[in-house]
């Protein structure tokens, strides 16, 4: 079974630029999650999708972050404009359904200069 795929693995941009991350969940997984992991901290949920609908985006900074999951499969997370404090690893995870164990991708490490 293929795992959760994320790209790119690394990204370096300057503040105020925009950036996008892509995630392909495990086939058949209805629920998809985006997490932000700042150095030295545990992952924090940014947004949760159930199929192509948003379940929880309460911790997503909506003035600069956006995410979509068209067709209920792949997802993209965008930051525009980026701030220095956005430097983090962005993890995508998927699960068969809500409240089932989550499987994580390797993440995208974002550095803001």
């Amino acid at each position: 079974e293929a795992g959760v795929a994320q790209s790119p693995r690394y990204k370096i941009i300057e503040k105020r630029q925009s950036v996008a991350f892509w995630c392909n969940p495990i086939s058949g997984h209805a629920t998809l999650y985006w997490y932000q992991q700042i150095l030295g901290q545990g992952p924090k949920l940014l947004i949760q999708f159930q199929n192509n609908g948003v379940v929880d985006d309460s911790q997503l900074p909506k003035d600069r972050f956006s995410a979509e999951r068209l067709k209920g499969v792949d997802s993209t997370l965008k930051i525009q404009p980026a701030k220095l404090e956005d430097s983090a690893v962005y993890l995508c995870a998927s699960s068969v359904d809500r409240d089932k164990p989550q499987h994580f991708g390797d993440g995208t490490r974002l550095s803001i200069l």
Partner: protein
Amino acid sequence: AQSVTQPDIHITVSEGASLELRCNYSYGATPYLFWYVQSPGQGLQLLLKYFSGDTLVQGIKGFEAEFKRSQSSFNLRKPSVHWSDAAEYFCAGMEYGNKLVFGAGTILRVKS
């Protein structure tokens, strides 16, 4: 507020020694509890999970965890640590229908 606490930021053990990583949770009801491991540059891998039933849970790579309601704890244990176990370990909790909340992690170092 729902929270998960890992009191130890770093732990160092000798190879072959036993290991216990601490995790405490604060939830109104009994949450679902998980332990994940993260190697450098990698995502999180699920070690084990507790949903209900038997309070001693067996996981992959020889790990186990025990749910203790009276102590609000879900500590991770391994009887004999291998050098390849060096990584960061995260405890996480979730109430049904709510989001997964992670602790800050414990970095495990293994000395030979």
